[in-house]
């Protein structure tokens, strides 16, 4: 079982307590009514889906119930780091070799 560090509980908890909540750092347009259909499609449906490092929202649903962001490698399924919701995308990842 994966152990995921919850930045609010400040410790690693079993993955069963967590729920994935999609890609992180997707900003909602400030004037969504003025968006063109193409732009709205990009915002609403299109996701990066990379092979490698991905920034995701996770929720500690069966714990503190808070949303937070996590950096995960989609190839190895390893969590690189987690950080609180609202914090900026980390510019440098710990232990980044490549």
């Amino acid at each position: 079982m994966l152990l995921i560090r919850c930045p609010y509980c400040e410790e690693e908890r079993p993955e069963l307590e967590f729920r994935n909540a999609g890609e992180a750092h997707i900003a909602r347009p400030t004037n969504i009514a003025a968006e063109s259909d193409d732009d709205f499609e990009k915002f609403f449906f299109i996701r990066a889906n990379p092979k490698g490092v991905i920034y995701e929202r996770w929720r500690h649903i069966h714990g503190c119930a808070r949303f937070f962001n996590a950096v995960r490698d989609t190839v190895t399924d390893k969590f690189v780091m987690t950080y609180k919701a609202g914090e900026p995308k980390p510019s440098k990842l710990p232990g980044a070799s490549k």
Partner: protein
Amino acid sequence: MAKAAAKTKAAASASVERRPALAGRTLSAPGVKVEMLPPAERISLRAPQASLAALSKALGVTLPVKPKTSAMKDGRTALWLGPDEWMIIDEAGNDPLADCAKVTALHSAVGISHRNVGISVAGPAAAVTVNSGCPQDLSIEAFPVGAASRTILGKSEIVLLRTAEDSFRVECWRSFSDYVFTLLSEAASDAAN
């Protein structure tokens, strides 16, 4: 005999009778005893940092701010559930909701006395029993006496509180209580082996 008396009284006012789910159910296995706890008053409390002092004063128990901890005073326990969320359990028969109502500082207190039921899991094999469905590390180092956490037991969400080295309080929604109690009972029987 007390039971008979309660029955007669209940018949007179059936609409206000409180019937806790699975009341009185117990299971004893070698090394662990699982039993339903008597009814208690409970509230779900949400509050920002600025209101904590006033709420702690009104409740008579200091709200813990450290994750996975609880505080207890005079039969009233405050469990940290999230950064701005607590569960208050009062076993002394006082109403924490009334205490919170006097506080003018911003907060949200919701009475959930009847939503939850408490189950006691006690005995040398208590941790093994709870661990059969709960993935958290329940060793005394990781989950000391007084530690409290919302977590999962099998398919049901629970709130777990360690009341003593070999004793846990499991809080679950009353509609899940049959499942939770049965799971704990099965686990208790297995834990002995």
